[in-house]
């Protein structure tokens, strides 16, 4: 599956899980997904300048009844940790975190970020799943949304390169 098809599958899965608002900050591997979000107009799309803002925006929207997801790279997850701890965890606010897994096995960039991503999620007590098959998106995103609502804690889905699909621009490399 290429990244454009994967983006449509993931967007449809988010809609299927009832997501109404997304706060996002780009990574090149998220670009097709964010383009699909923007072009569809089906979700309230809040492009943020720093990921921690997005945690606050999603928390605020949750408090007035919106189901939300924050879409970011794992570096942005690290940027968000104070808000995750003292807003989401402290107030027991659910949130779906869709985190691009930079430094995943086989990735030549951000290996330090990659190596610390799962340990930090574990330390925070945030349940997470590593997403590799795009076909899993509808079922696992739906289940992750149920889990975050039911546990009143954030749940993270780590989006790998293969999950997000092949990028057309890089095929020639």
């Amino acid at each position, binding site marked *: 599956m290429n990244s454009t098809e994967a983006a449509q599958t993931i967007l449809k899965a988010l809609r299927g899980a009832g997501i109404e608002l997304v706060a996002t900050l780009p990574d090149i591997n998220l670009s097709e997904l964010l383009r699909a979000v923007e072009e569809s107009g089906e979700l309230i799309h*809040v492009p943020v300048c720093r990921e921690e803002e997005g945690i606050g925006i*999603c928390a605020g929207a949750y408090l007035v*009844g919106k189901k939300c997801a924050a879409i970011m790279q794992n570096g942005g997850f690290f940027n968000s940790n104070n*808000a995750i701890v003292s807003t989401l965890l402290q107030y*027991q606010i659910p949130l779906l975190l869709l985190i691009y897994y930079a430094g995943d096995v086989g990735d030549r960039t951000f290996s330090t970020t990659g190596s610390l991503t799962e340990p930090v999620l574990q330390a925070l007590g945030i349940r997470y799943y590593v997403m590799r098959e795009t076909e899993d998106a509808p079922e696992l995103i739906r289940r992750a949304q149920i889990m975050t609502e*039911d546990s009143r804690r954030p749940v993270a889905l780590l989006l790998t390169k293969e999950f997000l699909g092949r990028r057309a621009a890089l095929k020639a490399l």
Partner: protein
Amino acid sequence: MVVSSAGAVTLEWNALRSSDGNFRVRTLGLCSSIALGMALGLPEGKIIALDGDGSLLMNLSTLPTIARMKPKNLLHIVFDNEVYEASGSKKTATGAGTDLVGLARAAGIENAHWVNSVDAFAQTAKRALSGDGPSFIGVKVGTERASVAPYPIDEVENKYRFIRYVEKSASIEILRTNLPASYD
């Protein structure tokens, strides 16, 4: 609905106007972001953010995001006392000359003003609430602390009370039973 920043502003506001429609923020900087999320999620409601200079300085990227999203129903008020008062009164950057209203305007929030009297504040806030936002009001304040009671409820109770307040005032259902999902 009123979202108030970590710091003295929360305690003083709640001593003045206790309400289930008040949401207290514990993450320094996040007040205006939480308020923005509420404004976008509930366009028919009016949202007021009561922020401080130390808080806004920690999350300056909120200003371009508010300017970009243009929520009509958001009023962002910053009480600027030029110190981290709740943390021992060390000087903030505004005490060294940074102009928060100037930053808001430069970010693209056109309706951003300093007010320098209680009357001017009341007039500007009234105008902001009756017209289209986003609006930003900067107020220079002193460092005298009012002697007020501690916040009476914890964070989780604050969350539930606030959500119930929104459900009632907006006639919507937010908290639903999870029972059907567990039988899927």
